[in-house]
């Protein structure tokens, strides 16, 4: 059996030889002992956790922490049966792993740091070892063996916790990335035949693709002949971003519409020229207002101030 099975290494079998050399069964005594001392362990654990400076009372209440801890400890201790191995992949361990995974994911979403999440488990290990040390006083060899086993189980559980924790964090990041791409590329109809697309945030290949597709679809849907790409919200323009912009402009041109880039800040103009990017065949304007004025002009529209006050 492989103690590393849960990490899903490519060859889980490669570890089995090493670990089979050790007797992996928890002796009945220890199991009963821990079962009996469950309350003690919980108290010790809670004390350890509460003493920790990194305790996040703002994120989790003490009662909640206690109930979480109790749930985990109950599942853990009842699982340390004689027949059980330290193989976390086995079905017997799935309740513990499930509870732990739940706790780790919740913590990831609540915004706990990895250190805080790790300390949650490490303090349990300390509590377990402390109880063992108190109880097994006459046999150093047995104490050592049991400690090793506890250690190994807890280490494996820590690995599981971290994996789940990171997975939870990554889910949060992925969701946010999706949301950002979705909300940050709106195509606005400024006027009959004039579209505006304010870009906010850095332009990478994936976003350029989304921006381009949205813009082109909207051009077809509205029959617009002028599109204004406003980059006032783009923090920096390097050669790659410029490349993406040029691509978007060229694609718009191929569709038969004209594309104006507006919102170019002085720093961006400096970088573009320093990098030697050629934007000479693209119409660029400093502000969205001047781009709109240009669009009106090329559509032969005029905005005038009315002298006489009209009653609506």
């Amino acid at each position: 059996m492989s103690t590393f099975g849960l990490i899903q290494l490519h060859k889980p079998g490669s570890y089995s030889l090493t670990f089979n050399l050790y007797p992996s069964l928890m002796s009945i005594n220890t199991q009963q002992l821990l079962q009996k001392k469950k309350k003690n362990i919980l108290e010790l654990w809670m004390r350890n956790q509460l003493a920790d400076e990194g305790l996040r009372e703002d994120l989790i209440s003490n009662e909640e922490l206690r109930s979480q801890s109790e749930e985990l400890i109950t599942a853990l201790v009842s699982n340390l049966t004689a027949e059980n191995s330290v193989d976390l992949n086995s079905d017997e361990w799935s309740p513990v792993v499930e509870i732990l995974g739940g706790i780790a994911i919740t913590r990831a979403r609540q915004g706990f740091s990895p250190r805080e999440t790790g300390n949650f488990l490490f303090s349990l290990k300390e509590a377990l070892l402390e109880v063992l040390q108190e109880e097994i006083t006459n046999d150093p060899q047995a104490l050592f063996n049991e400690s090793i086993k506890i250690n190994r189980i807890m280490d494996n559980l820590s690995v599981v916790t971290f994996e789940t924790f990171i997975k939870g964090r990554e889910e949060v990041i992925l969701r946010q990335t999706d949301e950002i791409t979705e909300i940050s590329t709106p195509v606005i109809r400024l006027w009959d035949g004039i579209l505006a697309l304010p870009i906010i945030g850095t332009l990478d290949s994936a976003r350029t693709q989304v921006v381009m597709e949205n813009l082109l679809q909207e051009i077809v849907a509205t029959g617009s002949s002028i599109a204004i790409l406003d980059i006032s919200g783009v923090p920096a323009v390097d050669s790659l971003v410029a490349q993406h912009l040029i691509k978007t402009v060229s694609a718009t041109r191929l569709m038969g519409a004209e594309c104006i880039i507006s919102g170019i800040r002085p720093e961006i103009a400096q970088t573009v020229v320093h990098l030697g990017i050629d934007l000479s065949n693209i119409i660029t304007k400093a502000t969205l207002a001047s781009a709109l004025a240009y669009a009106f002009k090329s559509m032969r529209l005029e905005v005038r101030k009315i002298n006489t006050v009209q009653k609506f």
Partner: protein
Amino acid sequence: MDKIPILRMGAFLLVTIQVDLYDRLALNLEADLVQTVNKTNAKGVLIDISAVSIVDSFMGRIIGNIAGMSKILDAETVVVGMQPAVAITLIELGLPLKGVHTALDVEKGMSLLKSMIDLSDPDEDQEAPEDDNFAE
């Protein structure tokens, strides 16, 4: 063998591509179109590719070729109705079709051609101003 019709509309030629172009068809179109431009003395060529959904680098080159050849024969080329996916593909292939004019649809393409011919006539073509004078 399929053949893409080339329609004459006044001083312009109208080509609507209703099928996906394969290489042979595109080559034939290129040859036919250049012949017709020469024969009819057309001032503009309008190619409608709104029904074309698949395009490759060869197609892009053919369109570029047609534009270049027409230009030599004193005719402007306008490509109209390109689909978004086709436009993105051409850009990704590195074919921005320089020298080809584009418009959203046939109507806009026609008015673009007309404006181009009207503008360029007094400069390049000696006969046009005389025609205008006669009309007045």
